[in-house]
């Protein structure tokens, strides 16, 4: 069974293939085509907007089923932001909640057979993590100025090991966005590959 499929050019990586549905090349090689990745991201966005507009507008004191789910998601992310960043971080609660909903909807949509998961691509997850990294740096430098550089040299450390310590801290600082993006893409890709490999044994 599976050997027949392989002879027809089937590959485990077919599900991750990006198909250009509408070709858009405005300036030479600059490619902003509408792909299946775009379509599934827009579907996630549409579902997000639909879910929140159709079910939470009445704001009932005793919530229905959908409103309960929305309230649980909201309080989970609210508590997470508040516990880890205090009241100062609550300014950034809206973007955290949007990010969480965007990722969870895309991840769960991808589990439906014959769909596409945008988060399994490094381009999407690294795009998010590097944007967050740049945003954090902008916030930090606008708040602390060049004092932020003291991040790389913790107080109370002997000056003799400064070159070594600063090098290690720099590496760990720039490894943060890489690990953030890579973890998401690798986990989702691994899960989807596992599905295909197991299904080829049936």
């Amino acid at each position, binding site marked *: *069974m599976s050997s027949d499929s392989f002879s027809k050019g089937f590959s485990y990586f077919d599900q991750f293939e990006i198909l250009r549905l509408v070709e858009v090349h405005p300036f030479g090689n600059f490619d902003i085509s509408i792909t299946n990745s775009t379509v599934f991201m827009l579907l996630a966005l549409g579902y997000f907007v639909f879910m929140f507009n159709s079910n939470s507008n009445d704001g009932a004191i005793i919530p229905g089923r959908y409103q309960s789910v929305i309230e649980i998601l909201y309080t*989970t*992310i609210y508590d*997470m*932001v508040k516990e*880890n*960043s*205090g009241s*100062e*971080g609550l300014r*950034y609660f809206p973007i*955290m909640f949007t*990010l*969480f909903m965007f*990722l*969870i909807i895309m*991840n*769960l949509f*991808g*589990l439906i057979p014959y769909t596409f998961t945008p*988060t399994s691509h490094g381009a999407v997850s690294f795009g*998010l*993590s590097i944007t*967050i*990294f740049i945003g*954090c*740096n902008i*916030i*930090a430098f606008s*708040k*602390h100025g060049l*004092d*932020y550089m*003291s*991040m790389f040299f*913790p*107080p109370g450390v002997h000056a003799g090991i400064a070159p070594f310590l600063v090098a290690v801290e720099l590496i760990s600082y720039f490894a*943060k966005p890489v690990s*953030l993006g890579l*973890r*998401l893409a690798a*986990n*989702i890709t691994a*899960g989807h590959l*596992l*599905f295909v490999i*197991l*299904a080829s*044994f*049936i």
Partner: protein
Amino acid sequence: MVCAGGMVAVAGLFPLAICFFITVLEIGVAAIQAYVFCLLTIIYLNDSFHLH
């Protein structure tokens, strides 16, 4: 598929059962990875507010 007296078809039920189990696992992974991404984002954001 029908060779070995249908044993291969019966043996195929085993990966099918695993596939169902992995689906449940992957729903958990999908939710946890989204949560972890947000958790680490807010931790990095907190580091940029407070110098240690």
